């Protein structure tokens, strides 16, 4: 585990760059994480997806299925990959402050 400065806050991240404590997340942190995931500018659509992911995670303690992500945010699959080039798991989830997904990802 290492500490890095994200959006002006010292935050603990794991070796894959995922933040460890969802409570320290804020929009500044998200923007700093976004810059590491090929998302130079967080648009309204990015925020919609990211905030959805965070709320879902805080409620159910698990990342949503891609189907739920697309349906609930009204972003279609193709556009989701355009918004988050590194994909929904490693891109969007990381920016939303979720822990690293487990398994073959």
């Amino acid at each position: 585990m290492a500490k890095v400065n994200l959006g002006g806050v010292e935050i603990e991240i794991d070796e894959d760059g995922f933040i460890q404590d969802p409570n320290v997340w804020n929009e500044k942190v998200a923007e700093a994480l976004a810059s590491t995931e090929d998302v130079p500018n967080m648009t309204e659509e990015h925020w919609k997806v990211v905030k959805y992911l965070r709320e879902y995670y805080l409620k159910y303690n698990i990342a949503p299925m891609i189907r739920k992500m697309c349906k609930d945010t009204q972003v279609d699959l193709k556009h989701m990959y355009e918004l988050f080039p590194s994909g929904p798991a490693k891109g969007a989830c990381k920016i939303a402050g979720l822990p690293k997904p487990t398994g073959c990802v």
Partner: protein
Amino acid sequence: MNNTENVQKVIELLKKKISRQAAISFGVCVHCGMCTDTCHYYAATKDPKMAPAYKVDQLRKLYKYYIDWTGRIVPGWVGAKPLKDDKDLDMLMDALYGSCTMCRRCTLNCPMGVDTAMLVRIGRSLLTSVGKAPQGVKDVCKAQYETGNQMAVTKEDYLETIEWLSEELQTATGDRGAKIPIDKKNANVVYTINPREVKYAPLSLLAAARIFYAAGENWTMTSEGWDNTNFGLFAGDDVLGALMGKRQFDKVYELGGRKLVVSECGHGFRATKWEAPNWAKMDLKFPIESFLETMTRYIKEGRIRLNSSVNKESVTYHDPCNLARSSGITEEPRFLLRQSVMDYREMYPNRADNWCCSGGGGAMSMSEYTPRRLEVAKMKAEQLKATGAQIVVTACHNCVDALSDLIKYYKLNMNVKVVSELVSEAMIIEKRIPLKVVAAEEIIRGSGERILVIDDEPDIVTYLTTLFEDHGYKTLSAFSVDEAMNKILSEHPDMITLDILMPGKTGIKLYHELRSKKELLNIPVIIITGINPVDYPQIDFRKFIYERSLPHPEGFIEKPVNKEQLLITVGKIFAHKQTAVKDA
């Protein structure tokens, strides 16, 4: 934590776990060092502790001490050492979990046939039994035991996702009746997937559904036993290994399926096809096939047709270790890609000798070792970079993520896809694309451009010049490099087709000269050559061109020449040149 208890348990289990194959592998290693350079951990770090023989010695010394008779008589001589405490277990964990992806490249290069990955797996099983495994591996094993799949996807979520993908399939095919069947009885194909395909990355599943649809296959997915991955392989847990296999096999029997097809997952295929029937002690009455084999069959049987001009970007292929080294599946993906893309480039080394993606053996779920994983991914990164390709294609979801990670880390600017995605993109679905339009787009006739054909074989020169002249081009010919150079300087052809293997000076030399002279730099070159000619089956000649720091040739066509592919390439190069001139 009681040290003695853990240590005692590991020693007891070690005595039970040593099979005949393991004892032979421990016994025959002569520490010759052949494996050392073949391991990407060693090759990237030059740290002697990363040599496969050294890593496995951490386990071998215990075998010698507790089991082998030589260790009781001359322990110092044969390197027998006891297991002292939990610290020793931690060191073992670092060697067997943190420094090996079980890719078996060392085994392939071992003159004694030591199966290092098998020994590593035995070592991991000892560690797993006392809870000494990376948290990520433990989590995934737990999810597979408890929920039947590695990402703990609920049945409801899974079925809803399949339904949603059915709707996407309808949009993609324009057929309201298209769907992904679930639990259909007596299907020809029962298809199982990597949970990643429903949880996060459904494009590959959609591609597969589209291909089954176009082939008119009687196929089905299942409501249970649909996860083809198997962390029993990585954790050394035979009980889990058997369970994950059995869940799929039972479902195939229950539905009366004729064949089990495993999606593009390297370890999933290996575990399901080669390992799980043994772990589960089941004598299966149906065949198991990789989706790569299925797609290849569809093309050969004429059930799907592809138009490679759809995929114009340059593509290379990464052989997953579990498919190439452990299952012998190397030619199917190449056949599929050559049918699906315009510019296919080989990677070196390749096939069974390919470097690991760096994420094998469950490494993608071991965050604690990520920095080391990325450091040793250097070998893979250099290999990828040398291809100059825009897309690296593989046939394993785990490789996809490992490659994406290292591409980002080494700033390579490449995309990663699986084979079925490209096949699906290139596929002609008859209902939607009128065939005539596609045919008209393919071959462009020339308008008197002059092409110089260089080849030492008169038959080939006659064939190519006739082909070009029949399609509106003018031709010149040369049978050696010196003759060619004279013609280039005196005639200034508009394009050159160049053979590489010629007596005297080779085509490589000529290519080098062409690309080093400013006034000749603008003449487009298409290399036309045998990749692995009969006399040099081990050498892929493409590397002599692509591994030089020269501009790449405009085209690369293999012998025997596919005339459509050649004419399309020529047409495109001239069209592109015209646009470039206009723009300038």
